[in-house]
């Protein structure tokens, strides 16, 4: 059979979905990352629940409760980010992947999507748990809260995937990832925690401010994704 001159490369959206599906499929086989993320997030919520135990069932302020939720989401998200390129490093699959004709940006967005799905899966457990332990009224604006969390996931993972790729061959990547990532994603943490805390108090919910912080989260997430798309290829090639 003569070598062929060209191949028909799948469309961009298909490329993204195939990368994300591949990551989720590998994760589904072991559920190692998901279980570790879930365990860490639950432990963080429990630790705060015991630390802030109150006599007579007094409720914590919404800003503290939303802070606890976002801290657990961010720290558990680090587990997903630090492992997202392990699959490529094992067996040097990264080189084979980079030599396929798919776009580097599709690899980035596929990885990003995979991490966001994992973070969202953990939030399905952590949000009700936080609501239960801290008597938070998360149910009153459930869809809005979900939107805030998903936007926060995108902003956080958009930066994290780039750093995870940059630290692909670093031995101390777990430590470095947290040290480099957290200062940069502070705007996402602040906006996410502020927006959530405003929704947590149904009696005096400042919905105008909540809209502002949601928009801020969306715009900062969008900026981080664009910067991630721009930085991913040079970071990955290391050239």
């Amino acid at each position, binding site marked *: *059979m*003569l070598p*062929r001159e060209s191949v028909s490369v799948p469309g961009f959206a298909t490329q993204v979905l195939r990368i994300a599906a591949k990551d989720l499929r590998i994760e589904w*086989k072991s559920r190692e990352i998901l279980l570790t993320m879930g365990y860490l997030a639950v432990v963080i919520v429990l630790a705060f629940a015991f630390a802030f135990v109150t006599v007579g069932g007094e409720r914590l302020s919404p800003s503290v409760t939303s802070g606890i939720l976002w801290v657990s989401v961010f720290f558990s998200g680090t587990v997903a980010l630090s492992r997202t390129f392990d699959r490529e490093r094992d*067996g040097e699959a990264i080189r084979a992947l980079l*030599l396929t*004709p798919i776009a580097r940006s599709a690899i980035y967005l596929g990885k990003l999507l995979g991490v966001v799905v994992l973070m969202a899966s953990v939030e399905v457990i952590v949000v009700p748990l936080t609501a239960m332990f801290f008597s938070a009224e998360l149910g009153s604006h459930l869809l809005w809260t979900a939107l805030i969390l998903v936007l926060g996931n995108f902003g956080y993972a958009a930066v994290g995937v780039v750093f995870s790729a940059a630290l692909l061959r670093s031995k101390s990547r777990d430590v470095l990832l947290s040290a480099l990532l957290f200062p940069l994603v502070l705007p996402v943490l602040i906006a996410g925690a502020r927006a959530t805390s405003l929704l947590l108090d149904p009696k005096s919910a400042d919905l105008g401010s909540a809209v502002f912080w949601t928009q801020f989260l969306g715009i900062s997430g969008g900026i981080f994704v664009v910067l991630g798309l721009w930085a991913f290829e040079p970071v990955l090639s290391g050239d």
Partner: protein
Amino acid sequence: MSLQLQAVCKNYGRHRALSRITTEFPAGRISVVLGPNGAGKSTLMGILSTLVAPTTGTVLWQGQPLVAGTPMRAQIGYVGHEPGLYPDLGARANLTLFASLYGQQLAPAALAESLKSVGLAEDLEGRLELPVRAFSRGMQQRLALARALLHNPALLLFDEPSAALDPTGASWLAGHLQRSREAGRTVIVITHDLGLAATIADRILLLRRGRLAMDRTLDAPMSEAELRTLYEEALRVAA
């Protein structure tokens, strides 16, 4: 479908990894690149595979400047000393994934044909879903070759392909490389294995400290001992 290098240099900071490499890798020939550690072989492989950009100089593919990107990568098949597969996925899932990234649907018949072409059809009967990490190194390497050939590439690159193979596996690999040559592919092999090089080489290139110390077309097959003598002599002259 030849690949030409014209005065290619590659610097990493102040370190010059490759210095004015000018040569041609013709189609239907196996070109073997030899050289001691640190000679620049991996950098050369990076440039040939489009993953590393030369600092200066030109790389031509079919007479046209080689542009790193989708069309060129679709013509490259790469096998390294690591298999370049996802160890947690099975043989079927790995090949189906990579085929899909080249825009192909891998039907059961095509999968069977692909495995047969690398001598794995019997070994993997009923084991297609087993994680690749459970396979022997030799089987992983055969599967890596099946992955590299999925899209019927015109340019085949091998980086230390026999590093983890036993003598039987190395002999099988030599046979497969010769079949690739007969199919009209441009085959480039980087190796330390002089036995393999003597068996397959149509051309021998020797790199030393980033320079081309020898570039010789072989008119007749050479024994390993003869090649070793030639190799040591060329290194001595270059020094």
